[in-house]
């Protein structure tokens, strides 16, 4: 009896045994799956880290610039009192270099020597003379920007040990730079030009101020148009509109516009604002209009969410004491929803600040040296400036581009940070 029982026990495989048998394998699968998930997140964060490291690594040196000290004798022979603004300041720089390196003879050698100094030095001397004509005839020691190749060399981007053919600098130039280094006449200083100048073909004279001002005007137009219009549209859709086909159509439109590629808005801007209405090309006004159309859906959607989060009891309370619907919205609902709307607007503005493609279509890619003074002046914006510099062949522009990206990212961080703080501060749980 007992025997038979145990025999039956052996033959019978209970479900729990099957489960136990497979359990180790299933747990392994579980751990594996979990690991996949974790590694996906790590891959994502790693990409973020590599991106930032590569940008910062490429760009942090751009905040310093190599300067050369020159002993300039403001020779009256070069500086005609009559027309100081058109005098030969380039010649003045050249003669200064000749006195510093008296041993350099021959035309090609001299040309190589002059190449060490940026063409910006002449402009610097011109500005000095125009500001104070009394310095003519005096000798002044001053720091002028070095050429971008010299700058790159001192920042270690060129190999110096290889022969003439490989680098952009010749052996003679290298020797002169070494000589200057021994005399302590060449050193890196904070790059003020980068923050105060407009664009330039010479990397050492190029700055982002022009693009920053252009971005400011463009965003100003965008903000002034998109915030009131967006809020008004959201109020109508959320508080007044009846549920009908027309409202549905508007909603579908807004949702779709939010997902239309930005370049299509550029095509719209080109065809409508430039070709049809004849607005000026490259102007922040047109850029702002295009970006307004682009950011409106974002702002409307965010504003509607903010209005929805205001509890109905507030509305009923206002209506109950006899307010009209418009008064209820203007006096009670809108003030409560405003922080949420502002948060959405800031996020929309941050996106507009980083937008490039539609602005290329309306001619904001032009090479513009002057700082724009209004919304109809030709201008460019920060991201487009980054695009333009990224396209330039000079090695020094890689550094400038990365630095400009760092500035742009800093602005974006600031705006998004402000949005988060605003949300945290005014977020209400009803």
């Amino acid at each position, binding site marked *: 009896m007992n025997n038979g029982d145990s025999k039956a026990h052996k033959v019978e495989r209970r479900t729990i045994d099957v489960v136990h048998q497979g359990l180790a394998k299933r747990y392994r699968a579980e751990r594996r799956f979990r690991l996949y998930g974790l590694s996906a997140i790590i891959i994502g964060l790693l990409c973020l880290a590599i991106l930032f490291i590569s940008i910062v690594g490429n760009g942090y040196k751009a905040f310093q610039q190599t300067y050369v000290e020159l002993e300039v004798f403001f020779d009256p022979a070069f500086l005609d009192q009559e027309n100081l603004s058109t005098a030969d300041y380039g010649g003045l720089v050249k003669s200064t270099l000749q006195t510093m390196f008296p041993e350099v003879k021959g035309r090609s050698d001299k040309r190589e020597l002059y190449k060490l100094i940026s063409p910006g030095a002449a402009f610097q001397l011109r500005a000095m003379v125009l500001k104070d004509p009394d310095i003519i005839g005096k000798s002044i020691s001053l720091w002028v920007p070095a050429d971008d190749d010299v700058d790159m060399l001192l920042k270690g981007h060129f190999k110096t040990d290889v022969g003439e053919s490989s680098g952009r600098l010749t052996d003679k130039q290298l020797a002169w730079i070494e000589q200057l280094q021994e005399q302590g006449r060449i050193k890196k200083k904070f790059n003020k030009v980068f923050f105060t100048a407009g664009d330039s073909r010479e990397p050492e004279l190029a700055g982002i101020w022009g693009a920053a001002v252009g971005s400011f005007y463009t965003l100003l137009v965008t903000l002034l148009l998109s915030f009131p219009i967006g809020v008004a549209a959201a109020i109508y859709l959320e508080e007044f509109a009846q549920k009908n086909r027309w409202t549905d159509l508007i909603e579908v439109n807004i949702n779709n516009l939010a997902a239309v590629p930005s370049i299509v808005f550029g095509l719209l801007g080109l065809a409508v604002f430039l070709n049809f209405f004849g607005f000026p090309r490259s102007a922040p006004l047109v850029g702002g209009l295009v970006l307004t159309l682009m950011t409106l859906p974002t702002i409307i959607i965010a504003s509607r969410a903010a209005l929805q989060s205001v509890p109905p009891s507030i509305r009923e309370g206002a209506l109950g004491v006899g307010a009209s619907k418009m008064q209820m919205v203007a006096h009670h609902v809108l003030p409560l929803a405003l922080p949420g709307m502002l948060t959405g607007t800031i996020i929309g503005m941050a996106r507009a600040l980083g937008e490039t493609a539609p602005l290329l279509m309306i001619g904001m890619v032009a090479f513009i040296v002057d700082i724009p003074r209004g919304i109809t002046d030709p201008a460019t914006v920060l991201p487009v400036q980054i695009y333009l510099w990224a396209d330039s062949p000079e090695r020094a522009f890689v550094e400038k581009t990365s630095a400009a990206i760092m500035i742009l990212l800093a602005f*974006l961080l600031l705006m998004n940070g402000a949005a988060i703080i605003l949300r945290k501060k005014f977020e209400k749980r009803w």
Partner: protein
Amino acid sequence: MSPSTILTALLILASIAYYLGRRRAFAVAGKAGGVRYLHSRPIYYGALTALWCGVPALLLFTLWLALDDKIITNLVVSGLPQAIRALPENRLNLVVNDIKNLVSGNIVAGEVTATIQAAAAHYGNLKATSNAALAAVMLSLGIVGTVVIRSRISPTMRARNLVEQLVKYLLIACSCLAILTTIGIVLSVLFEATRFFKAVPLREFLFGLKWSPQMAIRADQVGSSGAFGAIPVFLGTLLISGIAMAVAVPVGLMSAIYLAEYADRRFRDIAKPLLEILAGIPTVVYGFFAAITVAPFIRNLGSTLGLDVSSESALAAGLVMGIMIIPFVSSLSDDVINAVPQSLRDGAYSLGATRSETIKQVVLPAALPGIVGSILLAVSRAIGETMIVVMAAGLAANLTLNPFKTVTTVTVQIVTLLIGDQEFDSPKTLAAFALGLVLFVVTLFLNVIALKVVRRYREQYE
């Protein structure tokens, strides 16, 4: 008077109108026996006056600025001598540009003849006249509005209702802007595209295998006849978007699953915003990253492995685009997975399923429509992405599916065709609008489907 001064003047006028209206309301109320006999509070009378002063003038202002340049240019052109007017359209445009540049004091491309000089003076005069006329008309319109409304103010006037009605119309107008934008996009793209299809048949555009949009300048020029078969461009777009999705879907989906199902609150609070930073970085930054860091890396890797990798390979652009899209997939899928009711999971657990089995066999099938929707949205994002491909992908329209080769995309072609000289009578420029039309239609199609799928999915569990 410059437009901004006119606008400021109007603003001041409107504030005066507000004050006048309010004072008038007090005055008529005083006669009737006190403010309580007014229908509305006095500020509404002021607001009504200010609105009637400002809004019509503002509408006129917008209309005027939108049209005056066109009218003045036409006037100036019709004033030009017959010899210049007979020039072909693009040459004539150059002359007009010169005239405008002369007026604004910019550098002039062509030579400045006496006729151009005179035309420029004419243009400047007309512009000044137009501005002066605008100022006069606008301000008188404002004053008329103010006076009329002010004279009508009486204690029985329903000022609040009138103001609210007016404001409501303004609100409606603002919300209709979305529809106007869509119509504007469709019309502008369609209009230029039909002009393109008059020169190049639709069939050749959609099914042609050769894309080389450079048109011959002279008739006898060799090798640049212009071919507008867009298949290589479409294929390049598909290739790069495909690579991007191959990166973004697994990584994004697995991150979403981990964040929604496994991660504890603290980890989630840190990792999710960090991942979303990826979506906030401007695309031009990704483009630079792709061109400077990723593309050389892939080329070097390829050459050590003995592969021939182009320096503008589809792979580099696609990989970086994939990184950009990760957060789009992950946050949308995260929402979708979180919306699956807990009861489904509890049921699976109670049957003895492990967590991963529950996810694979219960949660994901339940969330599938939503996930598909989010992937479709991401695909539309990838197809429309511009800066990464402009900076990292090439211009050569190769008909290939090899990710190491250079391919081009729809957006790259739009940008290259429209940057620089635009001639709106040549198929080269118009081709950009035809491509734009395709892009708009395809992304619209994807978006509509995706939004519908997601919405239906949400309703299912609500």
